[in-house]
């Protein structure tokens, strides 16, 4: 028996969300007194044994170039084969883009109960109960899983990576790989940008900035803090910022450690996308802005005066 962790890659590099999944899976493995094993699909640029540093003991590498393109159907079958080979009783994914596509498929295939978007380690004192967010972060649910195999997909940024200094044993796993029905014809990456879903710090701005030409200070602050930039829905809708930056109920839901909201009033639809952030800082000239009720720190003031001073102060502490 084992805890099997799906280690997700992009262009041959392990995603940060997968490192969190490894540490999380390793903690469950030690809770259940089972080995922590990982599975990697497709070619890699990484030294996989180094992933032992996050707590995984064995890595099964299905090194087949057919897996360099993502197809949820094909990936599911390969991971099911890896799960059978390692006799996995708990299977861990990150609840990122790929995890959201594969984990439900695997759940249906193995008739294994799925907790999608877990935010804490399972409680195994009486059964197997996992906490997850529901109602777009406004509440949580404890989900009881009773099937012999359990699948958990971990919310990005919900569990901190833990380094143990270990090395993993890497072995090739030879399983049949069918050709997929999904053909990838183009990949468009915004180069150099920090992925919003994985970012630990997010600097976000809204209509209070008055126009797209005023985003320079938002980008500068984000750059200093190694943060991703985001925006409110009206700003994306009027085309000041690209749609993929829109966070909120109908855009992306994020859970960074620090969320800066500059000139965003904090409508309930926006809060639904960001209320899982650990620390929220609100800068708004309207003291009645609803966002202040959800904030940890705030400044009632003009963003055009306040933000440049914040940038100066950040530069000082970084020196």
């Amino acid at each position: 028996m084992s805890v099997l962790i799906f280690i997700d890659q992009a262009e041959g590099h392990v995603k940060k969300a997968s490192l969190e999944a490894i540490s999380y899976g390793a903690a469950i493995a030690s809770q259940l007194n089972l080995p922590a094993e990982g599975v990697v699909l497709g070619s890699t640029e990484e030294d996989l044994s180094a992933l032992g540093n996050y707590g995984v003991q064995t890595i099964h590498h299905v090194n087949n170039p057919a897996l360099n393109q993502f197809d949820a159907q094909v990936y599911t079958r390969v991971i099911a084969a890896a799960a059978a080979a390692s006799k996995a009783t708990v299977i861990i994914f990150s609840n990122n883009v790929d995890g959201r596509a594969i984990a439900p498929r695997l759940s249906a295939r193995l008739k294994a109960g799925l907790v999608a978007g877990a935010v804490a380690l399972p409680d195994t004192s009486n059964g197997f109960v996992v906490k997850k967010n529901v109602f777009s972060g406004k509440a949580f649910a404890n989900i009881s899983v009773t099937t012999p195999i359990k699948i958990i997909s971990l919310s990005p940024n919900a569990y901190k990576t833990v380094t143990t200094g270990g090395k993993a044993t890497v072995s090739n796993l030879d399983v049949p790989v069918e050709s997929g029905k999904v053909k990838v014809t183009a990949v468009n990456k915004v180069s150099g940008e920090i992925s919003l879903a994985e970012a630990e710090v997010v600097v976000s701005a809204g209509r209070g900035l008055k126009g797209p030409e005023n985003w320079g200070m938002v980008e500068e602050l984000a750059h200093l803090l190694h943060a991703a930039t985001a925006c409110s829905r009206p700003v994306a809708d009027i085309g000041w910022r690209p749609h993929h930056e829109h966070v909120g109920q109908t855009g992306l839901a994020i859970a960074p450690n620090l969320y800066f909201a500059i000139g965003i009033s904090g409508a309930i639809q926006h809060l639904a996308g960001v209320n899982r952030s650990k620390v929220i800082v609100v800068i708004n000239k309207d003291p009645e802005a609803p966002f202040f009720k959800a904030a940890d720190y705030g400044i009632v003031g003009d963003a055009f005066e306040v933000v440049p001073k914040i940038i100066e102060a950040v530069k000082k502490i970084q020196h």
Partner: protein
Amino acid sequence: MKILVCISKTPDTTAKIAFTDNNTKFAEAGVQWIINPYDEWYALVRAIELKEKDSSVVIHLVTVGAADADPIIRKALALGGDEAIRVNSDSHDSFVIASQIAAVAQEGGYDLIFTGKETIDYNGSAIGGMVAELLDLPFVSLATKLELNGTTATITREIEGGEEVNEVSLPLTVSCQKGMAEQRIPNMKGIMGARTKPLKVKEPVAIEALTSVAGFGLPPAKAGVKLVPADNPAELVRLLHEEAKII
């Protein structure tokens, strides 16, 4: 061309979230119900747009729910769609729900199955993938664009830090998100027409749940905002650095 659009009933975004029965049930009293926004704005409206371009497209809606879901389905039919099927089950287990939809889909023989990317209540984003697996169909998730060319779909989907374009032959399951379609509201003709569109009620197939809710809870309330004077933003940076220790 037949499209099946999966519709879920969810509490309105602004609904008060509270629980009853020893925190095991969502408190439904006084709650306004809506079509799950992702199902409505992106999945259903994209299907309607495809039908507007090609009148041979037939749209069926499916929901898994009790009779109190009927007003939501009528509202969806008022936007568009030819008929609806409600599977009479109040299960909240993703696998049970997906199995009901898969059974409906198998009977109907659809070229495309659309879901929203997730519901705003359980936030599982599990139904699309499960239905695809149960029917052994390809699945493209988090789609932001979809065009049809004969029996080939060209789909843009979100990936970390960008997007990817996929080409897939039908039949296929797609989960839809922002970008797929423009939000619209039902017109009077649609509302009147929806009253006479067929809404079939089907009894569920027997499927055992894989999970159950042991209990709900509310996150601890925030301690309250700590306000820093506008003339001293350096103090905010100091607090983030020394107190919160996050920069």
